[in-house]
């Protein structure tokens, strides 16, 4: 493993492709989970994937995420705060008590202009108290903050009853200065009031931009550029890769919906494939052909893959997508018998495993058998269908792609896979009753087929990169983009302020519009550099542009409504301001961790406090700041609760502290500190929101939700653990960038590095 033992023949850093790079991120497990959970409920429920459904689970995720992000930072710093949940309710009650004047003892009667900042100071004081006490006494933060937790619970109830004689503290809206603060903490974006008939064009345009940028970015990151690209390359492939599909896309939109017209679908596919082919063959080095003949194992895998996809499609068609009845096929005597057999099997297998007669994982089989009857009652027909369809289809495609990767660069297998997916899409579209299946699933399957085919074409044509290329200086472009975006942001914000909209609304509108302008200019610059300069390493900027455009497209779709939709619906979709804080905090948390000294120190005090201290990191100050960060966010959450509910019950927020910790762990943060991600915690909150709300959308019995969430936690921790070990292994492994080679000479090195990584 070590450079010095291997003789130092090749010290060059092995290039890791974009996928491998992504796989080493701490939040990758959460990201995959997020995709899986969304897919499950999207397939199961009609409303889950709509703007209304998104607003629904975002609302739950936001309040959770606002706290989960700082709790994750604190956890990375090696500490816990058990008072964080109670603190959210405490600041809410504090601000109401400070601002109300009821009876003889009824609160201080301050204006909110005083009461709100005062409650922030109150929160800061609690954070400082927690941090300082933990540092001074060197007691575990578990004990110290448990004390704070009980103090806060007692104070909430005690002072609430003392001042108002009730367990509900009421009437924030009667306080002085309510309007001003309500504009900030009670603000909401009501989608139905924002009609924009050009929305679908903006959404489609941004999606095309995102698709093109992401595809080109991935190609640029994956393949070696040729030194003398022929000049016709850019023009030719651009016409193919952008103009033709764009034309097809426009035709699709102007005819009857996104899906039905297969001709334009074919035009899009042909254009994209032609564009990718010309682009790859003209811009990148030609691949050196190496082809291996398919052996028996390969053929078997192909069979399994194709079979899985076919079975998935058949199941999707046979099972009823709208039936929310329980499956219940294992009821009565049979169910009871299977349950008994499962439990008995678990016991026997556990005993055998303990004595070393069978593998230690064997009892899992018994547990699964025992759970079958319960699952059969938990699952509705539509949920089972979604699980089976999604699981089988994904498994089938993954199997086929793995085979394709194993057999070198043969073109026919991935292309055949793409064709199978496309055929599946058409079958689903032709046969299905439900609109979701007919239109949405059809489009998604077609897109997947297209992506598979495009990557296959690229792989067959271009030579993989073997060395990393630094991102070139982007020169004036980012600066111009930032300047123009910033100026536009200020102008738009001032206009909104003059119009009399609230401060927060003006600010966020300004920033959003300025950001869109900045993105536009930056995207222009990136594409200009890509096409008209000899720079390499444009992959990263392209991916940035692609992700930003995709995010913007999503935001546009979620935030605006068309006249047609507005007239068709009774429902009111609203996004509360908590979503804004949630996104903001996750972004700030990620930036702080990755880019600032404080972030480095946070990792250090959590990973090895003594080491950090001995090289001059102010460990005590770092930890106290982290505790105060948690309390500031608890204050924000408390204000959001208070201005939303207007009256706050004494027990609001109690018990949420474990939820924050769970969400942070789901997001890939290490319980023991020193490793993790703020974005991951944000994703964890989103997963929680999706599951807790998706159960309602799917009309499953809500009594099961904790079972599902508990299962999620266990799975998340296992996946995260696996991903982290894999990440460390792939970073320690040298040479071949492909990770899937059989364990040989590298096995020892890998094990050693894992144990080294787990040392603290």
């Amino acid at each position, binding site marked *: *493993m*070590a*450079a*010095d*033992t291997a003789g*130092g023949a090749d*010290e*060059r*850093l*092995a290039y890791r492709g974009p996928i491998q790079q992504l796989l080493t991120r701490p939040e990758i497990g959460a990201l995959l989970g997020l995709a899986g959970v969304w897919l499950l409920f999207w397939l199961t429920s009609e409303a889950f994937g709509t703007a209304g459904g998104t607003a629904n689970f975002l609302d739950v995720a936001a309040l959770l995420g606002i706290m989960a992000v700082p709790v994750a930072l604190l956890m990375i710093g090696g500490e816990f705060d058990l008072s964080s949940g109670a603190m959210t309710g405490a600041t809410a009650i504090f601000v109401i008590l400070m601002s109300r004047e009821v009876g003889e003892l009824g609160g201080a009667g301050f204006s909110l202009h005083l009461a709100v900042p005062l409650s922030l100071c109150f929160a800061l004081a609690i954070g400082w108290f927690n941090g300082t006490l933990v540092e001074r006494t060197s007691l575990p933060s578990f004990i110290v903050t448990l004390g704070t937790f009980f103090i806060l619970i007692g104070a909430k109830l005690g002072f609430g009853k003392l001042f108002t004689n009730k367990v509900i503290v009421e009437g924030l809206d009667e306080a002085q200065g309510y309007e001003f603060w309500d504009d900030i903490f009670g603000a909401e974006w009501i989608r139905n009031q924002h009609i924009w008939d050009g929305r679908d064009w903006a959404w489609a345009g941004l999606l095309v931009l995102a698709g093109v940028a992401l595809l080109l970015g991935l190609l640029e990151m994956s393949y070696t550029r040729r030194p003398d690209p022929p000049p016709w390359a850019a023009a030719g492939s651009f016409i193919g890769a952008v103009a033709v599909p764009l034309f097809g896309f426009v035709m699709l939109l102007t005819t009857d919906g996104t899906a039905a017209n297969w001709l334009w679908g074919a035009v899009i596919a042909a254009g994209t494939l032609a564009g990718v082919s010309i682009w790859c063959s003209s811009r990148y080095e030609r691949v050196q052909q190496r082809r291996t003949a398919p052996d028996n194992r390969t053929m078997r895998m192909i069979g399994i893959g194709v079979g899985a996809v076919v079975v998935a499609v058949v199941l999707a068609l046979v099972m009823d997508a709208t039936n929310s009845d329980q499956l219940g096929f294992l009821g009565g005597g049979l169910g009871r018998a299977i349950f008994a057999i499962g439990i008995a099997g678990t016991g026997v297998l556990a005993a055998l495993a303990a004595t070393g007669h069978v593998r230690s994982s064997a009892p899992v089989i018994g547990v699964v058998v025992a759970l079958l009857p319960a699952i059969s009652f938990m699952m509705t027909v539509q949920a089972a269908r979604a699980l089976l369809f999604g699981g089988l289809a994904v498994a089938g495609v993954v199997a086929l792609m793995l085979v394709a990767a194993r057999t070198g660069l043969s073109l026919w297998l991935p292309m055949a896979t793409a064709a199978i997916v496309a055929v599946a899409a058409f079958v689903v579209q032709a046969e299905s009753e439900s609109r979701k299946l007919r239109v949405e699933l059809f489009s998604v399957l077609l897109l997947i087929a297209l992506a598979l085919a495009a990557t296959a074409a690229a792989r067959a044509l271009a030579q993989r990169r073997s060395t990393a290329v630094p991102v070139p200086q982007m020169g004036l472009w980012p600066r111009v983009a930032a300047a123009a975006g910033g100026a536009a942001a200020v102008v738009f914000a001032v206009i909104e302020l003059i119009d009399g909209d609230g401060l927060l609304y003006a600010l966020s509108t300004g920033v959003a519009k300025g950001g869109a302008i900045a993105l536009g200019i930056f995207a222009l610059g990136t594409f200009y550099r890509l096409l008209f300069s000899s720079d390499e390493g444009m992959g990263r900027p392209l991916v940035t542009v692609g992700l930003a455009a995709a995010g913007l497209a999503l935001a546009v779709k979620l935030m605006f409504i068309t006249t047609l939709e507005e007239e068709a619906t009774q429902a009111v979709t609203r996004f509360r301001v908590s979503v804004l804080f949630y996104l903001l905090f996750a972004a700030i948390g990620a*930036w702080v961790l990755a*880019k*600032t*000294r404080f972030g*480095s*120190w946070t*990792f*250090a005090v959590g*990973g*090895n406090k*003594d*080491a*950090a201290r*001995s*090289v*001059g*990191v102010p460990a005590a100050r770092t930890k106290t700041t982290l505790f105060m960060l948690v309390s500031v966010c608890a204050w924000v959450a408390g204000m959001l609760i208070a201005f939303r509910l207007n009256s706050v019950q004494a027990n609001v927020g109690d018990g949420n502290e474990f939820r924050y910790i769970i969400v942070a762990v789901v997001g890939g943060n*290490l319980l023991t500190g*020193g*490793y993790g991600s703020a974005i991951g915690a944000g994703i964890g909150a989103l997963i929680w929101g999706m599951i807790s709300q998706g159960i309602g959308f799917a009309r499953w019995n809500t009594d099961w939700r904790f079972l599902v969430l508990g299962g999620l936690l266990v799975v998340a921790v296992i996946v995260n653990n696996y991903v982290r070990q894999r990440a*460390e292994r792939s*970073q*320690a492994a*040298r040479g071949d960038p492909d990770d899937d080679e059989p364990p040989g000479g590298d096995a020892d090195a890998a094990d050693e*590095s894992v144990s*080294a*990584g*787990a*040392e*603290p």
Partner: protein
Amino acid sequence: MSDSLIELRNISKFYGNIIALTGVSTTVNPGEVTCVLGDNGAGKSTFIKILAGVHQHDEGELLLEGEEVKFSSPRAALAAGIATVYQDLAMVPLMSVWRNFFLGAEPTRGFGPFRQIDIEKAKQIAKEQLAEMGIDIRDTEQPVGTLSGGERQSVAIARASYFGARVLILDEPTSALGVKQSGVVLRRIVEARDRGLAVIFITHNPNHAYPVGDRFVILNRGHSMGNFAKEDISQAELTQMMAGGAELEALQHELATH
């Protein structure tokens, strides 16, 4: 003698009525390796702690560039250019090489609340500094936990020398390492010496000390057994003295009679 970087004259240290160290003298010069040898409990760690500012000596004189000093804290010793690489290394295993290299002294750019680490610069310097010591780290992004013991020692040494150390104290850098890894660390010691640093190499292994040392201080139960220049002592004599001569002979005799 006054042109030595550090000179110790009859340094003694008592913990209550326990004599931890008594009558130790030696000199430390730039571009030289001073080896401090001794078995467990010989007073090596007391010796380090006095130089690193953790403890203060009770008797004798500690001269830094001819002036008498007493370091009141580790920070004071560090400010005087004396850096200590402890056995447990002061590294955070889960953090990347470059973050560890710059931990506590990160280069920043930007201003006010937007101040952030200049990551490119930090990575580049870390890579350069490590390369200068002959360590080719494949990727400064990789966690320190994935490095071998020898590489970790090397990173710690490179870090100390980058941040302006004139004197480098290495506390048992080879004790937990295998033969090859130890060789790597010894090479680093020689490289640091060649760059003009004064190196104080604490070890209990004369086979490691002799090839790299210019001067040897041998401690036994808190007493100095002598302060030798390399030309005055052979490796065999060194081993003999360190183990307390007579005891070793007795042991050899005992083993031979079996």
